[in-house]
């Protein structure tokens, strides 16, 4: 349900090769104050960016009572894994309270499961539906093709704010509140941006191989699965990653339709857990442990696909 989809674009080779071409010409530069200042800025910027992640880790490994004794320490205070045991449900209520828990509980494994189902199914369905539609718009010959495509693209203009409430009413009317179907349906079938992006890429592919296959009698269905979609695998992966991240982090739509613990994704569960914590003695280490668990899959994705994600973001702008 993101309003404006993040825009990835294909073929990151462009920037890379340009950079490589330029690189050998650069001689080793002598020291300059300007460069030193610039590096100082970059390091400061990175510190601000990364520090909160470190602070999540540091706090989650601290004892919640000990935290208040030395809040400025850069290392965990009263090092323990109690906070993780608490939010993962491995500690009894008494143990949790003794370790500084607030008594609020969070069934984080259930929420992880829900988030995996929500983001996973969303990614599979919307990328598949978009790829099929994109093929029809890029490769098949039929009347009204461009007209239908232009109509679908108008959806890019309408921000979520206008459709969210009526979509809630619709899901409510259909009796799908607190179901995965209700969570998924509004976003899973249609994504204007994905279709646009994949069509654009398919149009850029040479049609010769496909035409050859068609002439050999392969039929468009077989051609699509054997030739066009495999050649589109790069952008399909990129879109899948971006869709997964976006859905995993989604908050507003689940808040409207999925408040039941059985379907509630992590973002919502985190919010509920935080609200349940008493204002007087919040369970900061528990919150940070839960936060770390919620962010972990994204950080793993980042380690595996980091460069690809950066390139896909970079290329959105150029078009």
């Amino acid at each position: 349900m993101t309003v404006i989809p993040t825009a990835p674009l294909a073929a990151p080779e462009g920037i890379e090769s340009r950079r490589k071409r330029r690189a050998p010409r650069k001689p080793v530069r002598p020291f300059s104050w300007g460069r030193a200042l610039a590096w100082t800025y970059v390091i400061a910027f990175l510190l601000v960016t990364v520090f909160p992640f470190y602070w999540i880790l540091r706090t989650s490994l601290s004892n919640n009572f000990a935290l208040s004794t030395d809040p400025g320490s850069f290392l965990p205070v009263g090092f323990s894994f109690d906070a993780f045991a608490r939010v993962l449900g491995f500690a009894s209520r008494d143990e949790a309270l003794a370790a500084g828990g607030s008594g609020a509980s969070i069934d984080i494994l259930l929420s992880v499961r829900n988030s995996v189902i929500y983001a996973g199914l969303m990614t599979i369905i919307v990328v598949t539906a978009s790829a099929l539609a994109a093929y029809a718009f890029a490769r098949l010959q039929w009347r009204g093709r461009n007209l239908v495509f232009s109509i679908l693209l108008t959806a890019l203009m309408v921000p979520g704010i206008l459709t969210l409430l009526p979509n809630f009413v619709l899901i409510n009317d259909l009796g799908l509140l607190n179901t995965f179907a209700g969570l998924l349906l509004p976003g899973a079938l249609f994504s204007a941006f994905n279709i646009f992006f994949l069509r654009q890429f398919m149009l850029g592919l040479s049609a010769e191989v496909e035409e050859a296959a068609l002439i050999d009698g392969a039929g468009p269905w077989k051609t699509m699965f054997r030739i066009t979609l495999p050649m589109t695998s790069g952008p399909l992966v990129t879109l899948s990653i971006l869709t997964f991240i976006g859905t995993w982090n989604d908050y507003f739509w689940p808040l409207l339709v999925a408040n039941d613990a059985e379907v509630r994704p992590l973002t919502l569960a985190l919010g509920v857990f935080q609200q349940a914590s008493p204002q007087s003695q919040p369970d900061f280490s528990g919150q940070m442990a839960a936060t770390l668990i919620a962010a972990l899959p994204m950080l793993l994705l980042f380690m595996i696909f980091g460069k690809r994600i950066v390139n896909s973001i970079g290329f959105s702008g150029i078009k």
Partner: protein
Amino acid sequence: MATTAAPRRNAPGRAHGLASRRNPSHRNDWKLALLLIAPAVIGFAVFAVYPTLRGIYLSFTDFQVLSPPEWTGLENIQTLLGDKMFWQSLGITFYFVALSVVFGILVSLVTAVILHRLTGSPFIRGLVILPFLISGVVAALVWQWMLDPQLGIVNIALEALTGERIKFLSSPEWVIPSVAAISVWKSMGYNAILIVAGLSTIPNEVYEAGRLDGASEIQMFRRLTIPLLRPILAMVIVLTVISAFQVFDIVAVTTKGGPANSSNVLQMYIYDKAFNQFDFGYAATMSLSLFVMLIAITFLQMRLLRADESDTN
């Protein structure tokens, strides 16, 4: 997969059009096309077109979800015009948008220019986008903890430096700047990478020519970089404005609109009307008005920024 062995990427694209028009194997394409676009078209009709029209309709009704909507004409709009809380929310939202757009774009632009000149390291660029990968809820939780008046590391550092603490999220004058700072933190790296991509499309020769003419770095930045970067900069600004107008998760987690409604942004107020007071009709009216404002602002920005052209030609 094996079939992709040798796609001839450089073959001229026009071969497609010519061949396909004569090729009888495309005669039955429309059947398959219908099948392939069916899911997308159904999704578009049911979950985009229908709710948009229904949202507009509901804006002119009294609707409490449980009973069917009742047409009330312009009553909601009259309520809106006289609703102090709406105008206050709108003001707060504008304040938030202004802060997060001005500072966000400034930081992203400076960072992008420096990164572009200094290093192409994928590792550094990767680190820069980290906050984009996490949800607003996670960002809000960790910053709420770091900004905590008693135990937060930011306040501890602040006290060591200035001797004073600031109630970032619990005082009316600091809450919006603080929420805007969290929002900037979350999006600055992403925007910087977008701008870096724009910068790398500017040919080096432009700068070499500038240098030959004796232009200083700052002159080149103002006279060459900014104008050539205009289209992408415009896009980043428009996207930032649109998302800032709809800020919700950071506010919902850190303040819930408080203290005393001082961070009650419009999206928060709409949510509250619909889901706590069950006044869906009026909530729809506010959504519609926000939508109209967004369209108008986007249009205005595109005109002002002349987003579709750079200054080169």
